């Protein structure tokens, strides 16, 4: 007999919020649409409810009821991520898990195939309890109903706390029909109308004509009606399993030599690429994971210039990376995995016409630089909107060189080279018989200067006050220096060429 279970995590976004802020469990707390005073409240915990706060209130209005109120917004992306995680966890109990789709207004609802589990679990009660315990360990409060139909298990899970296991269909149906309509996922407008019409339970709801419901409240309500009546075929549609592209092997004794490691990597990599090729996939990123003899792990990520199935190219990158590694202990286990992408015609092309200045070769060179020196080796300057020289740009990783660089023509501009970190200069002497020797004898005394111009601010974090000068040395060098008012020191910011 086909058995189906429904797992309900009531007020799922609120439970997520309280997971993020465990200290709020003892306070009135709500989930709001966005972090704004006028934002609507979506979910309310028991303590907030005791203060008269309800979903639909605005946060600012709710604050009038208690100054203790805490609020946070939970993004859809976060909910989605958690749903995936819970789905994966529930898969430990059954292979077929279906998280509720968008038409179910409340997230945190899952249907599980409960058939054929009698060899794995002593009873469905034990199975259900273990599900609850597993989710409890993830800090979720849940209710579970194990029944026979999608609607029956859903309605009961929504209305009853804890675990409910039905032995026969009649019992499930009787219980489901007594469930108050307010517990079900019905659009608020329709829900309100049903309350007014004194349609309070599922049983009352089922007395209404399907056609009349469709006309007045739309297909969503009508579909729920059909589902409850048993007129709608709604088989379980489990979430697909996530495929993994992993190859691993235990190494024959601790391996420290990069050459030997490369040999093993190549074995796994070839198998991995073959597997990807068979599925019309290509490799976008390669993950290496070494378990060392001292039980520590080493993880590396390599990015080719473009997704590929080219084993020599990848091995070349792995070689460069392995040569830079210093292992504290020998590797005892090796794992390689891939981030796959769909294979394109370009990746499959064998005959390529190579232009004189091939941008792909350039990017391949970048990939090799990254492999050898790490991701931060290839960067570009991105201009920022700050006042301090260091706040006017930042280095960002450069994936690919732009196809064409704009070059400025016309007047010759001076180049200011900025030190990564301003260099402290020796304090200025009170007696300077030979002039201000800013950088020692090598550059001679300061001959002329321009400034100061003052940069100050950042009071909200750490106040900065710098007096900048361009100083010309006797030897002709031009330095860019500043006096830091708070540190009472001179620094060299850069030089002018």
């Amino acid at each position, binding site marked *: 007999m086909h058995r189906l279970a429904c797992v309900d995590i009531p007020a799922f976004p609120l439970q997520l919020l309280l997971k993020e802020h465990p200290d709020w469990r003892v306070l009135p707390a709500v989930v709001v649409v966005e972090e704004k005073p006028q934002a609507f409240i979506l979910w309310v915990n028991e303590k907030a409810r005791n203060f008269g706060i309800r979903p639909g209130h605005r946060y*600012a209005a709710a604050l009038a009821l208690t100054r203790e109120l805490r609020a946070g917004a939970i993004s859809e992306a976060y909910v989605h991520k958690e749903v995936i995680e819970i789905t994966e966890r529930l898969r430990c109990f059954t292979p077929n898990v279906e998280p509720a789709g968008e038409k179910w207004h409340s997230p945190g609802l899952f249907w599980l195939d409960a058939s054929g589990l009698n060899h794995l679990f002593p009873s469905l009660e034990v199975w259900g309890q273990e599900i609850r315990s597993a989710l409890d360990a993830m800090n979720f409060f849940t209710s579970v109903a194990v029944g026979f139909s999608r609607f029956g298990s859903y309605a009961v899970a929504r209305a009853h706390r804890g675990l409910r296991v039905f032995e026969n269909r009649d019992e499930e149906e009787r219980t489901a029909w007594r469930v108050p309509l307010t517990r079900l996922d019905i659009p608020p407008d329709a829900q309100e109308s049903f309350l007014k019409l004194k349609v309070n339970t599922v049983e009352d709801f089922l007395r209404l004509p399907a056609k009349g419901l469709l006309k007045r409240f739309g297909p969503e309500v009508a579909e729920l009606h059909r589902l409850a009546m048993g007129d709608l075929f709604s088989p379980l549609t489990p979430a697909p399993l996530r495929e993994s592209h992993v190859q691993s092997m235990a190494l024959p004794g601790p391996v420290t030599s990069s050459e030997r490691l490369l040999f093993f990597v190549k074995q796994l990599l070839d198998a991995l690429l073959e597997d990807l090729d068979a599925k019309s996939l290509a490799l976008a990123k390669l993950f290496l994971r070494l378990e060392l003899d001292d039980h520590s792990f080493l993880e590396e990520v390599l990015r080719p210039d473009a997704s590929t199935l080219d084993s020599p190219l990848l091995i070349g990158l792995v070689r460069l990376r392995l040569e830079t590694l210093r292992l504290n202990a020998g590797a005892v286990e090796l794992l390689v995995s891939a981030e796959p992408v769909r294979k394109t015609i370009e990746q499959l092309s064998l005959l390529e016409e190579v232009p004189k200045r091939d941008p792909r070769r350039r990017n391949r060179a970048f990939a090799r630089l990254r492999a050898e020196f790490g991701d931060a080796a290839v960067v570009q300057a991105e201009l920022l909107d700050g006042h301090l020289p260091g706040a006017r740009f930042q280095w960002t990783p450069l994936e690919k060189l732009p196809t064409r660089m704009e070059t400025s023509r016309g007047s010759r501009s001076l180049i200011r080279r900025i030190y990564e970190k301003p260099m402290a200069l020796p304090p200025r002497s009170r007696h300077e018989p030979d002039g201000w020797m800013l950088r020692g004898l090598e550059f001679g005394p300061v001959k002329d200067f321009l400034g100061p111009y003052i940069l100050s601010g950042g009071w909200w974090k750490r106040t900065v006050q710098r007096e900048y000068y361009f100083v010309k040395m006797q030897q002709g060098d031009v330095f860019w220096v500043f006096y830091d008012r708070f540190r009472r020191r001179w620094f060299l910011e850069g030089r002018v060429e």
Partner: protein
Amino acid sequence: MTLAPYVPLFCKSNGSFLEGASHPEELVDEAYRLGLPSVAITDRDGVYGIVKAHLKALEVGIHLIIGSQVTIHDGSSILLLVENHEGYRNLCRLVTQGRLRSEKGSSSVSWREVAEHQKGLLALWILQGPLKLLREAFGSRLYALATRHRCDVDVQHEKALREQASKYNVPVVAGMEVLYHHRERRDLQDVLTAIRHGTTVRSAGRLLKPNAEFGLRTPIAFRELYADDPVAVDRTLSLAERCTFSLQEIRYRYPAERLPNGRTSTEYLAHLTFEGARWRCGGDVPDDMRQQLQKELALIEELDYGGYFLTMYEIVQFCRRNEILCQGRGSAANSSVCYCLGITAVDPVRMGLLFERFLSKDRAEPPDIDLDIMHQRREEVIQFVYEKYGRDRAAMVANVVRYRSRSAVRDVGKALGLSETSLDRLAKLLSHYDGPTVESLSGAGFDPTTPDHQHLLRLANTLLDFPRHLSIHPGGFLLGHEPVYQLVPIENATMEDRTVIQWDKDDIEALGLFKVDLLGLGALTQLDLCFRLLREHRGVELSMATIPPDDEATFDMICRSETVGVFQIESRAQMAMLPRLKPRHYYDLVIEVSIVRPGPITGGMVHPYLRRRNGEEPITYPHAMLKPVLEKTLGIPLFQEQVMRLAVVAADYTPGEADQLRRDMAAWRKTGRIERHRERLVTRMQAKGIATEFAERVFQQITGFGEYGFPESHAASFALISYADAYLLCHYPAEFICALLNAQPMGFYSPATIIDDGRRRGVHYLPVDVRTSNWDCTMVGEAVRMGLRYVKGLGKNDWERIEAARHQNAFASMEDCSRRTGLDEKALTVLAEAGAFQGFEATRRSALWKARGLRKEDPDTFLSVPEVDVSFPELDPFETIAWDYDASSHSTHGHPLAPLREVLKVQRLPDARTVAGMRNGRRVRYAGLVICRQRPGTASGVTFMTLEDETGFVNLVVWPKKFQEYAVLAKTTPFLGVTGKVQSEQSVVHIVVDELWKPSLSLEPNRIKSRDFH
């Protein structure tokens, strides 16, 4: 040797909204402190800050230069300084042009327009713009402004500027852009910039200034900065000398009327006044009134205010001609001329009112006449003023919205990047005026030791009282004999077709300019509607003037506190006072209106007055000379005028000084100027033989009620409306309530409470019915038929469709109504829920089921299966009332507690009528619906709540400790149970609360909208 000073020519005050970080007064004060001979205030595209700067400059004795930084189309700007009066007019004209063509808050003009308005202005060029054009236009009045702020681009910019200046032979003048008077304000300026751009200081980047070099400098520092060009610094002084214009030159004349027969305004005013006096007196004018009129007219002529009175007369005449109810309020009621012109309705001679409170020779400021107009038709009067004077000569006065504690915390916190929900929590903890404190921060869950929260505390407090944006005054007009835009720039308001000047009422008052206040008053609308109903429905002709005075039945009703809906005496506090004060005459109402005010209450005047009135305390005067002043209030000063007279009689104040005392009283919290009167008052009273104790007490009373006390004249005007309301409620309750319901929103109570109160008076109501109801409530026989305006969610356009369809034919069914009106599903649904289809459907539930399907196509018409009929249960009485409340916030079928009365009786819970008859000190349990929660500032934290049931009201007194104990219940529960002790005194009954609880009933009655903490 003293170093020659300089003049800062480019200073932006906080009148450059969200840019300047100092008050104009602070800039002037600091300039004075630094020994500078002049300072210029040059706010961006306006003259917002100049009046305050002008007053401060007069006070400290420094020369003020007026100017503005004017924004140009291309995004650049130019600095214009006023040389003479013509230049000031040109500046105002130019800014007005730029403002009126731009959206609210922005402005832009073209270079050509700048050139066209050059007369009387000096221009300071800031590197951008066509120098050649400007040189031709301004000639020797053009300068190039070399600004130095120690920025990295300064050198480069100045080099370019000097090259251009040299090319066109334009002299260079030194000047910095000053954004604050002291560099300590730099943080605040950063925050203001972040607020202006809607970002945080962390991500504002180069929107913020690069350093703190935008403050006023000492002469030494300034000269050191421009050490390479002392001539440019000296030029600031010579330039300042050229700017001779002062705001004192603004001589404002009221719009000249076209007067008949070549009369002067004085002659014509005297003619109208005596004509009015004869009309008021029904023939001969008594001597005392004649003398008073002659005295007033002489003063009006001397001060040249005749035109102002004639204008007010014109407006009132327009209202009369168009049957728009209006009445002067405030100090104008002290004037017999206003009374005779029909502007006010109180005879000041009969009332013994003080004319000096209105107009005084010692006071160099024009009179202030506020006109209350029925609020539904105020717009007509405003449009009349625009039409009569033209939009050039009539503009509305601004209301400068300033930062208060809550807005300061919110905006500063946002600029610091703090969580907005946390800021809201903090803001809610703060009072309106007092800034945040360490305690309030801690209370809201902030940690005052963290730097972010310390910044919040410091900056939010500094930001208090800074202007945030310009809004529009509720009804203040500035009228001019010449275009207003030559007096002050005009700009667009948010409201369509409204323009507003750049000064607020304080600025207008400080410069001695006239303004006309046209204020909307709901009570006048209600009276007007009621008079019309009486005429149309009952054939009774009544007006404010013909309502019988001193009506016994009316005062009996007032003494019983049956005053729901009566203007000014309907609040919980007023109702509690009425049985104690027992008004029997019009003047008692004047006192009633005035006495329940924070001033007399905190001044400790209420109880002594009541004891004397009830004969429990002898009426004594501290000195015989004060008897005439205090006689009519039984020796207790209750009105502002009495305080002024008292100062005149007992402390030899001149009328002008007495008026200054009143002003200082009103502003004592802000300025503390009242202290300077203490010694003068007390010593002079002592010298006249008045006991020190009384003199001190009088002073305490003055400070206590100055800010919140009513002038007698104001109370007298209001009391007229109160009496008219009370008379109509007493004799024509149905029409009164019908009018009150049609004038909503107004007053203290919700429509539900008004309807229930009317029901207890025997007024009958008919529910809304789509077949017969109008938009407004109407009279049907002796009953009030509720209007469709009370159906929640039904719009006026829906009503117009119903009216049009009904005009053709009566509705035959719901389907017919739906088809012919084309109402959407929402409108049909709300009508069904409100019971408006009761003529067609047996139950509201079946009407609702039908309404939800009327506007929708059958989903599968090709099958043409007829829809199955569904039956729904009928509404029981409790549900009927609950549906009424849900659909229309009131019920004609009864009070929400009426169907529950039997259950409440079983629980031995009495109704309000029974509680009202209980003896003092008896313990009682009661349950009712909360209609009002109040915690007046004068009550030391005591909360007053009013509960209602089908028989009346019960007032609760909740001590602070009890309120804290039951805070959640007290604040949130609409249906509340209370256990406490009855306190009954002089027919005023309260329950002093011991416990609050939630009544245990299987049904929850509907909530009535409660008026909370106003």
